[in-house]
């Protein structure tokens, strides 16, 4: 449990660093490290499939997409962030974490535990057989994403 808490603290720290750092490339790498730590937390919770997806897709593929975009938009990097936000963000976050800890401490034992459903079958059964309609929606979302990217990178006609 101590290791799990340490991993979670590290993940939150890297996620906050990803938002706070000025250099966008460093932010993307901090986000990848946070994803990696979250993947390890998933493994330790006994969820290997979610852990594999988190590490390979989120820490791998999405980071590559971020770095590609940063490379393509390198000259637009100098966005002046507001100074007020640079000060307010850490203060507001620390204040919120303290309130969060107090509220969670007060809530312990107060949320009733509803009976959990019993799961039968393997992960494959639940992923493919129990969620047929979801999968159709998921395929539609992927296709919508592909078409959106194709439409955005379409070559312009001369008469436009």
């Amino acid at each position, binding site marked *: *449990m101590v290791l799990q*808490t340490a991993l*979670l603290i590290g993940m*939150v720290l890297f*996620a*906050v660093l*990803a*938002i706070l750092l000025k250099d*966008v490339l460093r*932010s*993307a790498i901090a*986000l990848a490290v946070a*994803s990696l730590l*979250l993947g390890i*937390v*998933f493994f330790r*919770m*006994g*969820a290997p*499939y*979610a852990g594999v*997806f*988190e590490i390979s*897709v*989120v820490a791998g593929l*999405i980071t590559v*997409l971020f770095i590609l*975009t*940063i490379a*393509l*938009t390198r*000259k*637009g990097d100098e*966005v002046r*962030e*507001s100074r007020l*936000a640079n000060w307010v*963000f850490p203060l507001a*976050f620390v204040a*919120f974490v303290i309130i*969060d800890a107090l509220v*969670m401490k007060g809530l*312990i034992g107060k*949320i*009733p*535990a509803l009976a*959990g*459903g019993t799961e039968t*079958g393997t992960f494959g059964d*639940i*992923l493919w057989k*129990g969620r047929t309609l*979801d999968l159709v929606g*998921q395929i539609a979302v*992927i296709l*919508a*994403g*592909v078409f959106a*990217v194709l439409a*955005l990178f379409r070559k312009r006609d001369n008469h436009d």
Partner: protein
Amino acid sequence: MTNTWYLYLFFAVALVVAGLLGLLGRRNLIKLLIAIEVIGKGITLLLLATGYAKASLLTAQALVITYIVIEVSLVATAMALIINIYRESKSLDIRSLAKLKG
């Protein structure tokens, strides 16, 4: 609910709030997308932690995998939008979008 669940809830809420504060305070479009990703991480953690506490980890994992696939689609579309905005306005500043006419 178990005490472990409250621990995960604490970190999940912290991640969501960090992302929301980032969305409110940042001006760089890529930073805004990173903040959305951080919110997504909090949601993923909470989904799996609830599955863990309820002993229905397999369903929670199926939902997390669905979310991750949708997240990739979202990021690819958002990146394409950001690159196009950069080509039009030569800047990644969110305020430059207010100057667009049309």
